[in-house]
């Protein structure tokens, strides 16, 4: 039973995706909508059946270490449940959102492909098989962004190149393990691989793939661009939810089962540094954004930092916190993007300058936003509070500096959501927005269910945390339990101080600038930060731009080398040969006397030779 569910989890969406071009022939959109919702529900049912179960399917495939191995374990059954949940939510939401979009058929094609490939990656038990599904996700990623605004293809290319290069690095990492004495099927590894020598290179390359999928720095720069260019439900489904789940899931597998990540090792510090820098740099960018979706996109990056920091600590509290944060973030970030979508749908804009005072016109949307924003800012009793406290706990045990950076990140997170909420939902309302109404029910239901989960996972956090404790196992957790109110009152105290500081800062900013939108201007125009922000606006810090520039320089060198070789071949080989044949052609130009001369000279030479040899 579980075995067939395992296979069905990715085959149903992929096969259904292939049906979309056939179903979208007619003018009616109903068949496609029904198919997408039906597949999502079927997928959800399968995920519920498999939740917490174990199963293994293993077939020979390419020989040696590369087999068609699928495995269901407590950890990935949670991921499957997450993917299925977001699938249902987004399938319902998209019906309303895409009502007037001409690309709806393509959208659902990519939607189902994403679900299928993501499920496949989650259940794959072999590294090459995982890569197969993992890189397959690039196709719907590219497609999703292309069907956005007319100029969106530039962002699509950017996303494809960044993700493609990182996946290629991952493929080489897999190649190193493939050639070494290690197994590629995870469940066949008798013990985790020590991170040293060639395995260390493989570890770093595979980590690049994992954190790039999750959207960590420095592989993040396509996400804010996509927030503006791509269809909004895509942002909620892929960068906010599924990519986070998959990226952090794989990071978790890498550091927990596949490699042996020890506390205090360089690899652990590397992850923690990446995590802390990502938290801070991305949230600083989020703080000054003037667009609803772009602001959320930078937070989507910043939150990954917490997960990487938590897992990087290699301590049980940090790991459980990081994994719990992965689920929490997917839920509230998805919800936040959906509120953005509702606003975009009803007002036609996500530019914060044009918004304001929407709370009374869209009360349900505002309520959902409020819950999700409290969660992401770490306000108790919502879910984000509990996962962040666990991460703080782990980070503080390793070094106070990581804790301090994470806490500073939380301060800015809260500050930017105060600003966002103020600018969009409070304050004066423009005349055009006076007549708008609440979003349709098909869009409200998904948002409400996500907000409900935020509350539920906060109040009953022992439920998800208990599941994650089984993932880690009794040996790793030492029998400790992590659910419930955080043990350290100092951590709680500092969190409250941070939140209070954010509120005071907001009041200060509003008073200084006179509007909610300008609440962060005193940071934006601070002495050093102002030049940094100006440069960031010009994409001076975008590694993708650096990469393209160096590729261009390299290409010019190669091009000159190529032309030099071509000149040499032309000048030496081709020209000289043609010259020679031209010269030789002079001796037989059809002149009778010349031919007679050659004949006689030849005859003479033959006679001379014969005489000589006689």
């Amino acid at each position, binding site marked *: 039973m579980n075995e067939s569910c395992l296979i069905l989890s990715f085959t149903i969406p992929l096969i259904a995706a292939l049906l979309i071009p056939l179903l979208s022939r007619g003018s009616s959109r109903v068949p496609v909508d029904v198919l997408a919702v039906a597949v999502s529900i079927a997928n959800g049912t399968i995920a519920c059946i498999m939740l917490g179960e174990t199963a293994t399917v293993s077939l020979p495939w390419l020989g040696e270490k590369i087999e068609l191995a699928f495995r269901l374990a407590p950890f990935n059954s949670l991921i499957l449940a997450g993917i299925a949940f977001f699938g249902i939510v987004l399938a319902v939401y998209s019906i309303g959102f895409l009502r007037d979009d001409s690309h709806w058929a393509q959208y659902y094609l990519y939607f189902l492909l994403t679900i299928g490939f993501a499920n496949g990656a989650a259940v794959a038990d072999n590294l090459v098989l995982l890569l197969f599904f993992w890189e397959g996700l690039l196709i719907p990623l590219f497609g999703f962004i292309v069907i956005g605004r007319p100029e969106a293809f530039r962002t699509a290319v950017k996303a494809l190149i960044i993700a493609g290069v990182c996946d*290629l690095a991952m493929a080489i990492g897999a190649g190193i393990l493939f050639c070494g004495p290690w197994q590629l099927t995870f469940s066949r590894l008798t013990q985790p691989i020590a991170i040293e020598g060639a395995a260390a290179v493989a570890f770093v390359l595979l980590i690049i793939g994992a954190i790039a999928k999750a959207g960590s720095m420095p592989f993040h720069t396509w996400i804010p661009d996509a927030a503006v260019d791509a269809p909004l439900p895509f942002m909620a489904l892929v960068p906010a939810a599924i990519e986070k789940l998959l990226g952090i899931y794989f990071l978790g597998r890498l550091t927990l089962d596949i490699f042996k990540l020890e506390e205090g090792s360089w690899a652990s510090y590397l992850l923690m540094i990446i995590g802390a820098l990502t938290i801070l740099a991305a949230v600083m960018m989020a703080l000054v954004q003037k667009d609803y979706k772009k602001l959320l996109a930078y937070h989507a990056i910043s939150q990954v930092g917490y997960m990487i920091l938590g897992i990087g600590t290699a301590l049980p509290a940090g790991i459980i916190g990081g994994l719990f944060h992965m689920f929490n973030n997917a839920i509230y970030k998805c919800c936040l993007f959906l509120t953005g979508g509702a606003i975009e749908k009803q007002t036609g804009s996500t530019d914060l300058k044009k918004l304001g005072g929407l709370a009374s016109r869209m009360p349900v949307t505002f309520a959902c936003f409020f819950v999700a924003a409290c969660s992401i800012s770490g306000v108790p009793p919502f879910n984000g509070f509990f996962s962040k406290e666990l991460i703080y706990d782990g980070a503080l045990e390793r070094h106070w500096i990581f804790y301090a950076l994470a806490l500073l990140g939380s301060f800015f997170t809260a500050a930017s959501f105060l600003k966002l909420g103020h600018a969009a939902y409070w304050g004066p309302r423009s005349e055009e927005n006076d007549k708008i109404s609440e979003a349709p029910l098909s869009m409200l239901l998904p948002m409400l269910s996500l907000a409900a989960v935020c509350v539920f996972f906060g109040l009953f956090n022992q439920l998800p945390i208990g599941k994650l404790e089984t993932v880690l196992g009794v040996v790793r957790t030492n029998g400790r339990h992590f659910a419930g109110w955080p043990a350290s009152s100092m951590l709680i105290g500092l969190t409250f101080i941070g939140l209070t500081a954010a509120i005071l800062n907001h009041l200060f900013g509003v008073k200084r600038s006179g509007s909610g939108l300008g609440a962060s201007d005193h940071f934006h125009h601070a002495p050093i930060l102002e030049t940094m922000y100006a440069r960031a606006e010009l994409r001076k810090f975008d590694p993708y731009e650096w990469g393209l520039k160096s590729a261009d320089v390299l290409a010019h060198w190669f091009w000159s080398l190529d032309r030099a070789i071509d000149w040499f071949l032309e000048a030496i080989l081709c020209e000289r040969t043609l010259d020679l044949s031209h010269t030789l052609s002079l001796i037989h130009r059809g002149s009778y006397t010349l031919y007679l001369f050659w004949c006689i000279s030849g005859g003479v030479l033959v006679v001379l030779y014969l005489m000589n040899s006689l």
Partner: protein
Amino acid sequence: MSSTLLLAAVLVPVLGSPVLPLIGSYSERARNLSALVLVLISLAASTALLPVIRTGENVFTGSVLSLGPTIFHADMLAVFMAIVSIIVGAIIVFYSFGYIQSFDHRDEYYFVVVLFLGAMMGLIYANNLIILYLFWEITAFACWRLIGFFREDKQVLKANKAFLITMFGSLVMLIGFLMIYSQTGTFDLNLIKEQLKNTPVSNGAVILILFGILSKSATLPFHTWLPDAGVAPSPVTALLHAAVLVKIGVYVFARLFVATMSIDPIWHTFVPWIAGVSSMVSAGAALLENDMKRIIAYSTISQLGFIFLGLSIGNEIGIVGGLLYILMHSLAKGGLFLCAGIVEHGTHTKDITKMGGLASSMPVTTGAFLVCALSVMGIPPFGGFFSKFLVLAGAVKSNQYALAAVFFIGAVFTMLYLTRLFVMIFLGEARGQSAHEGTPEMVVSVALLGILSLAGGLFVHIPLNYLHATTRMLLGGS
């Protein structure tokens, strides 16, 4: 029976090709169909050999002119190569029905194309260095005639360039063959294999033969004829410069230096490095070109580097990857050139800066192009992913990390220039006049190659199991 099949695979297209112009003077349709039938007979003959050689048995034909005990010989490697070449060849002939009908000299076109495919079969099945050389030069002649098909000064000049460079290489290679003869006293590959069982072949001979191989397979520093040859009709470029002709060099490398002789270990480092530099340099050039066909041609040079890497790295994984790469690249790159042909037919230009937004007017071509491009980039579920993975794993297996890094750069460039190409042709604003989709034959051909690229990825275990067996046989035998 088997040896008759073997002879049929080679001789039906070679001897049948001169008849095509005669048929053509009566009926165009009959000539086109006969050309396809000749190719399909050869395909059927090669396929019929599969069950025989799959058991590990080799098929030989008798001798002529006392050149050696056997002329042709079919083993797993040869049948694989023959089937790959002739399948792509058949699709290209079918595509030509639509493409070439608006040009002159159609009789000559079908004659030379079928002759070329026949010569390719002869070269693949040759078991004798002289026979191999003979067919090698027939392909060079056919290539020269086809590049200069439009007969204007510019085309003839490029055709001459291609002919002179490959001819220079092959003459140097012939000297290499003579050196092997002086070492072993025979041109017969089986006898050479026995003679050289314990001693590697002399380095002088290897380097001379490499001249021929590198020039035919358009590898640095003998590669620049290939982008220039884009002046030919598109099906020709697909046939010669993507799918079939350029694979001659890599095939002969596998035939001589993997299957027959052992070479000094230094070559397992030297040849991959040449391939790596070639792959990187041409990929860089592809990024700066604006001519659609030249970009794809540079891409071919770059991908040939990957094939060479796999075949020359000297371990089983690399060789399997290299051979799989030949299959996947032939399908995908053939598809890209044929798509380029449809685009050129529709827009009357090859300059990508003058194109854009063709996705809406050419949906099938766009889809096929994208699938083939993703396969060349090495993105699953398309076939190119597996071959690229195995080739890179081969480099890692030999602990050549620096080499793997060079190829990594090549692979990143591949992604850059192919997405650039796709975006500039098919996406964005339409520039210039609107184009229309190609003729049914042309569209079916590209769609077929796209589907094969996908099937190659989904059912990769079928060719891969075959190639594993092939490689074990090759390595076990030498």
